């Protein structure tokens, strides 16, 4: 018995000594938490998001900050591991005392973090999680992008009406809620437009060998293949599909949007299409200014949709704080919920009563390393 108590004491002592003291922000700063995957299989998402938000906050700080204070963004990496999300979000809220949270790109991770933010009454804005369930977690959770029940319909419409495809095969990432949700919507919408789904194959995020699935798909002779996954797998799929002589174009969603997509898939991706939140081709002055500033800041890199959405999310958060006149969680939450007709890089953003944004989607075509804007589809257009 004695040794157990002794051990409890020693343990507590060890822990006390190795812990960093909580660094609360200095009085002159507003601390905002950002959690993302900076390393691992979806690293470019996390890096783009962080860079987009950082650019927004820097611009705001240069213009004087919010409520007279500068905003400091504290970034934590979950290493593409959803089980790490809980720990880092708790740390940001409890140890670093952030007043608001930005993140995550991937819906699974947002779904892990949202309950924690909701329970602690810390407003959370996800820049690009498209799974509908994320904002259903609670009234402190918001998003500034469209959802998958819209995105799936967009590609179904494009495939049926523009590409005139009749038979489509689906290759879904079954370990990924985003992918599963998206293909379910696509399938339903495509069938309602008179198309048929000729094959359904699956893979898991992290897989690298798709020969078996692609061989099965090839035998059904589809007009197109819907692959709503993330860029690493999609690029590899494209590469192997061409190798097997599968010529049908690949279709996908915003999970394709990464500068690495072309690096991985190469010429195999020519003639493929994906739905996205914005396009660098968009002539609107807001978009072009953002693109130019981003290129100047970040080594001539073009901002992808995640960076653009993160930029908008950060700006909307700051705007909400200004409108609320305070950084109190409840007041900021109400201000975010009241966001109306905000002119963002990714479109005009109004936060609805379900805490989601309603925006049009862009269809991009992959051509020789560039993603070209082909069509814009508004929410009204997909109604059947």
């Amino acid at each position, binding site marked *: 018995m004695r040794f157990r108590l002794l051990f409890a004491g020693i343990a507590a002592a060890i822990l006390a000594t190795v812990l960093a003291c909580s660094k609360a922000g200095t009085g002159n700063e507003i601390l905002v938490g950002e959690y993302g995957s900076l*390393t*691992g*299989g979806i*690293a470019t998402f996390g890096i783009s998001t962080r860079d987009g938000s950082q650019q927004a906050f820097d611009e705001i700080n240069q213009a004087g900050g919010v409520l007279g204070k500068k905003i400091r963004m504290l970034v934590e990496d979950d*290493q593409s591991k959803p089980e790490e999300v809980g720990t880092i979000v708790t740390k940001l809220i409890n140890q670093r005392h952030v007043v608001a949270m930005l993140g995550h790109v991937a819906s699974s991770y947002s779904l892990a973090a949202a309950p924690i933010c909701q329970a602690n009454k810390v407003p959370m804005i996800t820049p690009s999680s498209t799974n509908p369930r994320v904002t259903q977690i609670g009234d402190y959770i918001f998003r500034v992008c469209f959802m998958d029940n819209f995105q799936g319909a967009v590609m179904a419409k494009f495939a049926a009406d523009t590409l005139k495809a009749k038979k489509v095969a689906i290759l879904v990432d*079954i370990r990924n809620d985003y992918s599963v949700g998206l293909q379910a919507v696509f399938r339903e919408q495509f069938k309602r437009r008179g198309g048929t789904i000729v094959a359904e*194959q*699956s*893979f*898991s995020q992290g*897989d*690298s*060998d798709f*020969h*078996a*699935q692609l*061989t*099965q798909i*090839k*035998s059904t002779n589809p007009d197109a293949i819907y692959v709503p996954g993330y860029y*690493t797998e999609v*690029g*590899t799929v494209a*590469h*192997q599909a061409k*190798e*097997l*002589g599968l010529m049908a174009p690949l279709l996908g969603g915003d999970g394709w949007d990464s500068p690495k997509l072309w*690096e*991985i898939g190469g010429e195999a991706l020519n003639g493929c299409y994906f739905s996205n939140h914005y396009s660098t081709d968009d002539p609107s002055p807001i978009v072009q200014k953002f693109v130019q500033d981003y290129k100047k800041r970040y080594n001539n890199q073009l901002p992808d949709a995640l960076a653009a959405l993160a930029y908008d999310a950060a700006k909307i958060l700051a705007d909400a704080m200004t409108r609320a006149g305070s950084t109190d969680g409840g007041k900021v939450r109400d201000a975010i919920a009241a966001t109306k007709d905000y002119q963002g890089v990714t479109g005009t953003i109004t936060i609805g009563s379900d805490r989601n944004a309603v925006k049009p989607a862009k269809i991009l075509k992959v051509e020789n390393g560039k993603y070209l804007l082909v069509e814009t589809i508004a929410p009204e257009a997909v109604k059947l």
Partner: protein
Amino acid sequence: MTTFLQQLVNGLSLGSIYALIALGYTMVYGVLRLINFAHGDVYMVGAYVGYYLSRRLQGKEPSLPNAILVMLGAMAACAIFGLLIERLAYRPVRRASRLTLLITAIGVSLFIENAAQLVFGPDPKFFPSLAPHAEFMVAGVRLTSEQITVIVVSFMLMILLRFFIQKTRTGKAMRAVSFNLDAAKLMGISTDRIIATTFAVGSALAAAAGVLIGMQIPKIDPLMGILYGLKAFVAAVLGGIGNVPGAVLGGLLIGTSEVMVVGYLSSTYRDAIAFGILILVLILRPQGILGRVTKEKV
């Protein structure tokens, strides 16, 4: 029918890779009775060495001589790497209990994986094209030059290995050591050198597999060795651990069944199938297909 044949080709090419890796496991187990957990990671290092070598040679057109150079380079580098592992980590504990050996192997494997993540970066990398791409149609089945290369090179290496083990003195010594280490020592065989050679040869084969997989599926990452290594180990057990032709048979069987399950059933069970086979083998026929039952003497 053509789809089935196509899947068979896919399976053979994947299976050849498993076979190459399984050979390393089986040889090391034969001489040391040790499951070298780190073997899968040697395969990964081979792929990365191949990657960096082929990047060096890039700029020029993908060509056959370049490909061979990359392959040999990776094999040589990993042979040395295997020697290092044996010398630094396994030799000091060779006389210790089996448990200690097992834990050491796990530790080495973890170390290589995590060090690789630090050194190479955790994000996946993509193998550049090594040899010119070509396609052939045979009986309605499409064979890519990559698949043919994998199958042909693997078989060449396996035949070379068989020749080495059966016809050379060192090979004979290896067989003696796997039969009975102490007796071999008494017969004047330098067991330390033979064990080192075994590691070197096994590692070289794993490296070859790494380069081949880089050609087939361009994606490589620091943790690729874990799953491939485990499945190759299952292949070695399936064929009869310690048995060289068994490892080849096991590899091809595992590769083909994996492809068939993914193609005709569902990809969810892709990894589970290997473990399922392992459990069945160990329960029903633990000596494997080609293995012999050895009685444990007290």
